[in-house]
């Protein structure tokens, strides 16, 4: 969850597309009292119906998500509706839980949310891009999905594989987005946006059989 700032594909012209919410207890403050506060926060977040939430990839039930968040000292979720986040933050502020809350998205969106709750931004983390050996990176559109899991668990090859299956009519983009959300244990892959990106990938049709075979051959060479 350290890495949501590095998500690709945001555009100031498309505000409100997604906001990640992270609540975290500072390590020195972990105790029964803050664990209870975290339980309450997790319950509030679930009630505001995020698009995806920590634990959902393993099929965890709401009560399990609440307990996991208290034990881990963190809860993470992604919303695709700014109004919901505004209401959520207003409710969190009213509870005054003493737990850090981080929003990740367009700075303009976060500002609107803060303003609606009477808060001001405290500390920000700004991404200035990717440096180093750029030849190792996948193409921009693949990165738009891959960077949604901040821990880098959504494989570029899996994205290509899923897009190809969609192109072949073997699954829908919605099913593909659901599959690609599974590796992300933080539950912050935006399934709605992933579905749209997958459709765009299929439309551009870069997933020829030749490309797929090339990956298999590359892997075979590497291992033989």
């Amino acid at each position, binding site marked *: 969850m*350290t*890495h949501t*700032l*590095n998500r690709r594909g*945001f555009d*100031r012209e498309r505000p409100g597309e997604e906001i990640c919410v*992270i609540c*975290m*207890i*500072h*390590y*020195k*403050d972990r105790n029964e009292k803050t664990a209870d506060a975290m339980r309450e926060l997790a319950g509030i977040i679930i009630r505001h119906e995020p698009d995806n939430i920590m634990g959902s990839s*393993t099929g965890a039930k709401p009560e399990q998500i609440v307990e996991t968040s208290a034990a881990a000292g963190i809860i993470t979720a992604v919303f695709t509706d700014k109004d919901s986040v505004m209401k959520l933050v207003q409710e969190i502020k009213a509870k005054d839980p*003493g*737990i*850090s*809350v*981080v*929003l*990740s998205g*367009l*700075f303009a969106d*976060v500002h609107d*949310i*803060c303003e609606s709750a009477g*808060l*001001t*931004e*405290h*500390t*920000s983390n*700004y*991404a*200035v*891009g*990717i*440096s*180093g*050996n750029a030849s190792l*990176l996948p193409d921009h559109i693949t990165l738009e999905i*891959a*960077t949604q899991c*901040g*821990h*880098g*668990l*959504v*494989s*570029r*090859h899996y994205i290509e594989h899923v897009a190809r299956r969609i192109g072949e009519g073997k699954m829908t983009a919605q099913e593909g987005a659901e599959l690609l959300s*599974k*590796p992300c*244990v*933080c539950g912050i892959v935006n399934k709605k946006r992933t579905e749209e990106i997958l459709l765009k990938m299929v439309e551009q049709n870069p997933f020829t059989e030749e490309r797929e075979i090339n990956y298999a051959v590359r*892997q*075979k060479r*590497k*291992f*033989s």
Partner: protein
Amino acid sequence: MYIDQDACERCMDCIPVCPVGAIGITETKLIHHFSFQVVIDYETCVECGVCRRLRKCPQGAIKQVEEIPYPRILRAAFSDPTFRHASTAVLGRGTEEMKTNDVKNEFTRDNVGFSVEVGRPGVGAYFRDLQKVTMKAVALGGDFASYNPVVALMDKSTGALKEEVLNEKVLSAIAEFIVPREKVLDVLEKLTAFINAELESVATISVIARNDDDGGHSILHTLEAHGKLHGYAPYPNGKVNIGIAAMKGGNP
């Protein structure tokens, strides 16, 4: 992580899910035909656990050894976000960075933080690559955050990492350090040029700063103006601590 060859039915469904391409095929030529096995390359695998967690294998052929030895265990610690770091007790990459700054006040109005995540996005990196960054950061006057698992492996005076960890590969690891606010552009320029020239892998660079009194982003505007002259553009999106914990006696 390894594949139990007695259980594997060679469906190959697990191959694309590996973030670092560690799962592949080995082929053996027999007298009348070729035989193949699906295997996990021990050196390439970063122990992130995705292949096993996704339950892609209906036979349960993807397995983990009972105990991963040191220093290989660091692969899991830095690549598997369900793994709690021994040195910080934090999940994920093991650092709270600015997420709890409204409590700890590590980033003040006089300094800025740099977070350089080596191996990200989705490429992976050896600790020897991370060491290049940590040593450069020390040379540039960076003061390392103590509450980061990388620091537990590092000599803070030089940035050198423990010799035995250098050839361990992870999905990513974060070098986090602080510099005086007035040095932000100088450090950014030198660091970026160094990373572009020296790294085998990739790295994301980010800057952490306290917002202005009114919540404004003056550092972002400085970076945007600087980026126009130096060929980069800060993202329009990022992470913002909204100061909820500060309301309860934290750090206003």
